[in-house]
C-alpha cells in the first residue's frame, strides 16, 4: 500500500489495489473508537441505459440501481442486516444519481468479520422472483413519501422540466410503473455488468492497523472468482439545448407556494478536472452574489424580492449542467424576473478578489471539517476518487481558481434555457 501523509491536516491514508482490480483506501484515525467502511460502485440512477465497447445498448427501467440496492441488501440466504447487528454494527445503503453505496460503522475493536461480511454480501446476489415482487410495495411507498414533500418535489420537478431525454428527468427510485415493470432477470443483469471489483471502491476510516485490514481484504478477494470486466459507459440520447417544459404548475397541499427557476447549461468539455473546477467557480460566484456576503441581500429580503428561505445551487456533472433558484413566494413571476435581472448584473461584476479569497477561506474550513467524522471521510474520499483526485487535491483545485477564471466562465454562460416550476396550493385545503 502507498502511504499518503498530509502535514497541514495531520492526516494519513493508505492506498492499495487487490489483484482483481478492487481499489482500497484506508484512513488511519487512531484517536477514534469508530470504524466506518464504505463499499461503493459509481453506478446510479442515471445509468439506466448503458453502452459497451461494441456499441450494444442495454436499456433498463428507471430506478433499477435503487431497486438493486434494496434487493442486494436483503439476500435471500440470510438477513444481512441481522448479521451486521449481531456484530454490533450499523449497516445501511443508499443510491444517488451517480453512485450506490453500502456501508457500516462500528466501535468494535476488531472489524475483520463485518468487513468480510460487507465484501461478501455486496459481491453475491441471490434473489427470488417472490422477493423481487415483495420489494415493489416497499419501494412504491418510499416514492410516495418523497412525492408529498414539497421541498424535494420542486427539485425533482425542475430536473424533469429541463430535460427531454436525459435520465436526470427520472426520480432516483423511478416511478410506480417502472418499479412494477422491473424483473429479477434485469436486476441480475445490472448487477453482473456493474458490480465488478474493477469498477468498485472500498474506503475505510478506522483506528485499526491499515496493513492488517488490507491483508483481510486481499485474502477475501483472492478466494473469489469474477468474470472479465467489460467496461460500460452511460448511454445518452442526444439532448436538445432547449428545455423540455418551460412552465410547470403543480398543485399540492401546501400553505406557502414554492417556485423554482431552473437553468439548463451547456456541457462544453469532457475533461473531468475542468468540469469540477467550473462547478466550483460557478458555485463561488453564485454563493457570493446570492447570499448574505452580498450587501444587497438584506435589501432584497426587506423589499420582499426573496424570502429568508431562498437558496440556489448549481451542478456541472459529466453529462449535464444546471443552476436552480428556489424560494417560497406567491408571486412566481416577480421572483423569476428578479433572479434573471441579477444574473444579468453578474455579467459585469462576477466576483472580486476579496470575495474570492473569502470563499476560499470558507471552503478550507469546510474541507477540514470532513475529518471530524469517519463517515464523512469515506463518502467524500469516494466521490473525489471517482473524479480522479483526493480531498487535498480538491483543496488545491479550489485554491487555484482566479478572478479571471470566474469572469471567463461566466461571460460564456448561456442562460437562456430556463424552466419555471410552481408548486401551488390546492384550491380547497382541509
Amino acid at each position: 500500500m502507498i502511504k499518503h501523509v498530509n502535514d497541514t491536516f495531520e492526516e494519513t491514508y493508505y492506498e492499495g489495489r487487490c489483484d482483481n482490480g478492487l481499489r482500497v483506501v484506508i484512513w488511519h484515525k487512531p484517536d477514534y473508537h469508530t470504524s466506518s467502511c464504505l463499499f461503493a460502485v459509481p453506478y446510479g440512477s442515471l445509468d439506466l441505459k448503458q453502452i459497451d465497447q461494441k456499441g450494444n445498448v442495454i436499456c433498463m427501467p428507471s430506478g433499477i440501481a435503487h431497486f438493486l440496492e434494496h434487493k442486494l441488501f436483503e439476500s435471500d440466504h440470510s438477513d444481512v442486516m441481522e448479521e451486521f447487528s449481531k456484530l454490533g454494527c450499523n449497516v445501511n445503503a443508499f443510491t444517488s444519481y451517480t453512485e450506490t453505496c453500502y456501508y457500516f460503522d462500528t466501535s468494535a475493536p476488531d472489524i475483520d468479520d463485518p468487513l468480510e461480511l460487507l465484501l461478501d454480501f455486496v459481491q453475491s446476489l441471490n434473489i427470488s422472483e417472490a422477493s423481487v415482487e415483495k420489494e415493489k410495495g416497499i419501494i412504491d411507498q418510499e416514492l410516495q413519501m418523497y412525492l408529498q414533500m414539497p421541498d424535494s418535489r420542486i427539485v425533482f420537478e425542475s430536473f424533469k422540466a429541463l430535460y427531454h431525454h436525459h435520465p436526470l428527468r427520472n426520480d432516483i427510485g423511478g416511478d410506480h410503473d417502472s418499479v412494477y415493470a422491473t424483473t429479477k432477470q434485469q436486476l441480475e443483469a445490472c448487477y453482473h455488468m456493474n458490480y465488478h471489483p474493477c469498477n468498485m471502491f472500498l474506503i475505510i476510516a478506522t483506528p485499526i492497523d491499515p496493513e492488517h485490514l488490507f491483508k483481510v481484504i486481499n485474502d477475501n478477494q483472492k478466494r473469489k472468482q469474477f468474470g472479465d470486466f467489460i467496461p460500460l459507459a452511460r448511454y445518452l440520447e442526444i439532448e436538445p439545448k432547449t428545455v423540455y417544459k418551460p412552465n410547470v404548475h403543480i398543485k399540492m397541499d401546501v400553505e406557502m407556494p414554492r417556485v423554482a427557476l431552473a437553468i439548463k447549461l451547456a456541457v462544453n468539455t469532457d475533461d473531468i478536472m475542468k468540469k469540477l473546477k467550473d462547478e466550483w467557480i460557478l458555485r463561488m460566484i453564485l454563493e457570493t452574489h446570492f447570499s448574505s456576503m452580498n450587501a444587497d441581500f438584506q435589501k432584497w429580503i426587506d423589499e420582499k424580492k426573496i424570502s429568508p428561505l431562498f437558496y440556489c445551487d448549481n451542478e456541472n456533472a459529466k453529462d449535464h449542467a444546471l443552476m436552480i433558484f428556489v424560494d417560497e413566494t406567491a408571486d412566481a413571476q416577480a421572483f423569476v424576473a428578479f433572479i434573471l435581472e441579477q444574473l444579468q448584473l453578474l455579467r459585469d461584476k462576477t466576483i472580486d478578489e476579496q470575495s474570492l479569497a473569502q470563499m476560499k477561506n470558507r471552503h478550507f474550513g469546510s474541507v477540514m471539517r470532513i475529518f471530524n467524522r469517519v463517515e464523512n471521510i469515506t463518502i467524500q474520499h469516494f466521490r473525489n476518487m471517482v473524479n480522479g483526485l483526493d480531498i487535498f487535491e480538491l483543496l488545491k483545485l479550489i485554491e487555484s481558481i482566479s478572478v479571471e477564471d470566474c469572469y471567463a466562465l461566466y461571460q460564456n454562460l448561456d442562460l437562456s434555457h430556463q424552466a419555471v416550476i410552481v408548486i401551488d396550493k390546492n384550491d380547497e385545503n382541509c
Partner: protein
Amino acid sequence: MLDYKIVEGVNLHIAKTPKFKDVNIEVVFSKQLDGVDDVYYYGLCQFMEDSCMLYDTKQKVSDILDELYGAKLNVKIEKRGQLLILRFVSSVMNGKFVHKDLLSEQFKLLAAFILQPKFYDDSKGRHLFAEMKEILRLNIQAINDNPASYASVRANEIFGDMLQKHCIYSLEDVEKMSYELLYQKYQEMIQSMAIDIFIVGDVDERCCLKQVKENFAFTERKTNKQLVYLNEREDAIEICESRKVTQSNLVQLYTCQKVSTSKDYASMIIGNGIFGMLPTSLLFQEVREKNSLCYSIYADFKIYDGIIKVATSFDIKQRDRIEMLIAEQLKKVKDGAFSEELLNTTKQMYINNYRQSEDSAASIIWNAFRESIIHDERTTEQIIKDIAAVSKQSIQEAFKDVTLKVTYILVQEGESHDQTC
C-alpha cells in the same frame, strides 16, 4: 470532562480531546418548560443568530465567520422532558492548523452575539424583529407542509400534558408578539436561566477558564433544573383528519411510566430496540420486510418524557393490517415472545452506539449536559454493563405498563372524513 463552577448557576465543562479539527463551544441556557410565551424563545433564536451590535449586518456576520475559516454559529431551541433549552453552538477551526489564536476570537464572537444583541439599537432591533416574525411564519408553514412532521405535532397536541408544551407555536402566537416582551425574555435568559458552557477540542483548560471569565461576566442565579417528566393521559383517543396528500401518516403515542432515571431504564431501552427502534426490530421486520406495507416504521422511546412514539406512512387501505401488526409486535415484547438471539443482537447494537457517541462533539456535549442535570455519573462502561445485564424477564417487567393513549391518522383525502374515529 472537567467541570468548573464559575458562579452559582453558571458552570463550565471542558472535554480535552485531540480528535476534532475544530473547537466546539456551546453556551447552553435552560429553564423549566411552562408553555407560556414559548414563541418568544423561538423568536430569540432567530433574532440572536442573525446579527448583533458588533456585526450588525448579515454581510458583516458572513465576513467574520469566513475570516475564521467558515466558522459556524447557530442558535437552537430544544424541548426535552420538562426543560426548554437555548443553545448557542459555535465551531471554529483549531488555530494550530493555521498558526493563529482562533480560540480567543471564538470566545469574542460568542460574547458579541450573546451579550450584545441588536436590542441595544432600537431602530435596528425593531427592523430585525419584523424579519424574525416573517421567518417564524415561514418555519411553521414548512412544518405544516410536511405531512409526517404535521402528524407528529398534531399527535402531541392531542395527547396534552407536557407533550402539548413540546408543540411549536401557532401563526396567531407570532402575530401577537411584541418587541418589548422579546427584550424582556432576553433579559430573563441572561439574568435568570441556568447556564452551562461546554468546550470540546484540543484546548488548554486554563486558557479556556480565563477566556470564559474574561468574556462572560454572568451573575449568580438560583437554578433547579428538572429534565425528566412522566407524561400521563387518562383516556385513549383516536383521531383521523384528512388532507390532499399521497400517503397516510400514523402516529401512536404510548405511556410507559419509564424515563432515563428509572431503575429499569436499560431494560426499557433494549425492549424498545426489540420493538421498533432498529432495522432488526419486530416492527420493521414484520410490517415492512414481511408484509411490504410501508417504507419506514419505527418506535421511539422518548427517554425524558415517558412516552413511546410509533410512526409510519402507508396506503390507507392497509390501515387495519398495520394497526393489528403493531399491536401484535407490542404484545410479543410484553409476553417475552422474542428470541434470545434478537435480545443479544439488540444489546450489541446499543453498546456499539454508546461507544460511537464518544466520537461526536455534539453527543459528548449532550451527554455531559444530561449527566449534569440528572446527576448521572455512570461511565460509558457502567452503562454498557447495565445493558449487558438486561434479560427477557426484565424487559417484560419494564414493558408491562406500556399503554396506547393516542392514535392520530392523517388520511389521504377522499378516503375518510375529519372525525373522531
